[in-house]
């Protein structure tokens, strides 16, 4: 990454309302030059509107958009050094692939475009298809044309609006890596809008999780996954087991909480909620952090670990792992993912088990929010 800041995108207090509906609440966001930034959220969360305001396709109701030091809020799209890869590509059906890619160059009055276009088509491995029309290409090829058509203009920022949404799963994985490679190669700032949390996490350096027109949390994929600060992020990004608990006491950087008679410990630094004694918190743990031990072997579990007892309600074998749903007093559907290394044959539905995990893998959330925020949204997609 360079120290050049001309590719920074700075949104200050930007908002968008349609009549009485607020699509985007006043939003401050800085995307540094050269980063791969993802706006993640369910449909209707305002991520695409935010992107379109950067592109100039939507006029913000308030606030400003800066690219580097230049304010572009009032500039029409054709004057902004920004290009977009549109959802379902929006390739020009009456032009061949070559002319589609050359479109931006020609509009800027560049005469000899042949070399540049050919190089760009080679970069996206479409050199052979130059004289075909868009409808003669497959979805993946059209997608690459859309990327080439935008990238050839060497924009300061490349905006990607659900660019992989129309592709099948396998091709999507392939294109994710491809886009990541291209981004590393050209070093342009990418802002990527997606509803696919896996896509956001595999590709982006920084992810902003949006919900109902607001950024819920912003950070690196690992940070968001390990330290969600809201239930929405905890549930939307992967799966979380959330337990309603009451703070018992605080000692030496650790918070002890009570949940359904049992005690759980979590690091104070990982608790985003106030931890006054008697106060309510939501305690969370990711399914893959949990170890499952049959109730008969409960004595072998080290004492320092958080533990919960329950019975297996359902199992599903995925191949690399097995997913268990555990019925426990603290949470009726506790999810546990276990790697299939040494499978315990006794772990079948109906078996009594002890779930245990390291206190360090526990996080705490403010109990004043809906415990299932973000669950429905992901399930719907």
């Amino acid at each position, binding site marked *: 990454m360079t120290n050049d800041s001309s590719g920074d995108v700075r949104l200050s207090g930007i908002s968008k309302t349609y009549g009485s509906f607020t699509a985007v609440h006043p939003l401050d966001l800085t995307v540094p030059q050269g980063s791969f930034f993802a706006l993640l959220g369910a449909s209707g969360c305002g991520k695409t509107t935010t992107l379109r305001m950067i592109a100039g*396709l939507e006029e913000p109701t308030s606030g400003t958009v800066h690219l580097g030091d230049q304010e572009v809020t009032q500039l029409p799209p054709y004057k902004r050094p920004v290009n977009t890869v549109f959802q379902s590509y929006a390739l*020009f*059906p*009456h032009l061949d692939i070559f002319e589609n890619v050359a479109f931006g160059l020609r509009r800027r009055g560049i005469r000899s475009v042949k070399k540049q276009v050919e190089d760009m088509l080679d970069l996206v491995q479409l050199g052979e298809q130059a004289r075909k029309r868009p409808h003669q290409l497959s979805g993946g090829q059209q997608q690459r044309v859309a990327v080439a058509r*935008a990238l050839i203009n060497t924009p300061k920022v490349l905006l990607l609006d659900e660019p992989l949404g129309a592709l099948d799963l396998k091709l999507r994985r392939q294109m994710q890596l491809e886009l990541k490679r291209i981004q590393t190669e050209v070093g342009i700032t990418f802002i990527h809008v997606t509803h696919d949390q896996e896509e956001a996490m595999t590709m982006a350096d920084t992810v902003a999780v949006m919900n109902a027109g607001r950024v819920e949390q912003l950070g690196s994929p690992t940070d968001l996954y390990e330290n969600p600060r809201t239930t929405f992020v905890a549930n939307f990004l992967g799966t979380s087991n959330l337990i309603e608990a009451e703070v018992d006491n605080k000692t030496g950087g650790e918070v002890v909480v009570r949940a359904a008679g049992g005690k759980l410990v979590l690091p104070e630094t990982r608790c985003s909620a106030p931890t006054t004694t008697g106060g309510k918190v939501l305690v969370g743990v990711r399914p893959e952090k949990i170890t499952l031990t049959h109730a008969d072997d409960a004595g072998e579990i080290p004492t320092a670990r958080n533990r919960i007892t329950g019975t297996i309600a359902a199992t599903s074998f995925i191949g690399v792992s097995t997913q268990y749903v555990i019925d426990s007093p603290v949470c009726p559907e506790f999810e546990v993912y276990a790697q299939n290394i040494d499978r315990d044959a006794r772990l079948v539905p109906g078996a009594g088990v002890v779930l245990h995990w390291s206190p360090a893998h526990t996080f705490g959330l403010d109990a004043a929010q809906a415990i299932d925020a973000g669950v429905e949204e992901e399930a719907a997609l």
Partner: protein
Amino acid sequence: MAALTEAPPPLAPAPEAKPPRRRGRWTPYWLLLPGILWLLVFFAMPMIYQASTSVQTGSLEEGYKVTWHFATYWDALSDYYPQFLRSVLYAGAATILCLILGYPLAYLIAFRAGRWRNLIMILVIAPFFTSFLIRTLAWKTILADSGPVVGALNTLHVLDVTSWLGWTSGDRVLATPLAVVCGLTYNFLPFMILPLYSSLERIDGRLHEAAGDLYAKPVTTFRKVTFPLSMPGVVSGTLLTFIPASGDYVNADLLGSTDTRMVGNVIQSQFLRILDYPTAAALSFILMAAILIMVTFYIRRSGTEDLV
């Protein structure tokens, strides 16, 4: 995308379904029969009849006989080529005017009208609720010598310019080429707007955004994206305007004078007044051939085959 819309593979037909299938095989042809008969009786037969008429000689009193007298064609062409040229000229002018007037309106309806879209569409089609003849007669009143339109044009000295160009004569509009072209334009405008609208309306709005995003100013977007993509509409609109306009005789009859006679007027008077059937038939065939040649050439040139 195509894969998503593909129908699921048809199920193998059950063996007992065979007898009804055999009967069903002829159903499409039975259904076609009325249409085919209609075309045979009302299109093919008259065509053959007219073709035979065009090479007959004789007189009303003695009756006509097929003598393969192709000279009728040559005579018709050499006698009436000014009317042919005028037809092409007036129809061409009306088509261009229709395009100039119709395109912005179709564009407006397709992209900007919002909730007014249906209302404007009705207004475009509304003239069809009245007879062609009545509408053309109304133009006679509009362009009347003492009417406000002519008065205003005279005051603004527009008529001096158009008279100098030969479109009007003196201080009147009626009975001049301008009046005929105005009438043609008015009467065929909906035939231009409707196909234009339907092809503009099909353009994906994101293509405009994509063009803007790729540094095209709005004007350039129109020139490089919108207009090329609306070419199917332009072609069908111009054909639907030009073809009937070039054979029209009502406008020239009601709004023109003897100096503005089009080939349609000649055919009409040959058939109904002079009763020279071979010449009238020959003129019809020449007009048809001329239009076919022009249209073929036009469609070839416009290269819209792969746009639809």
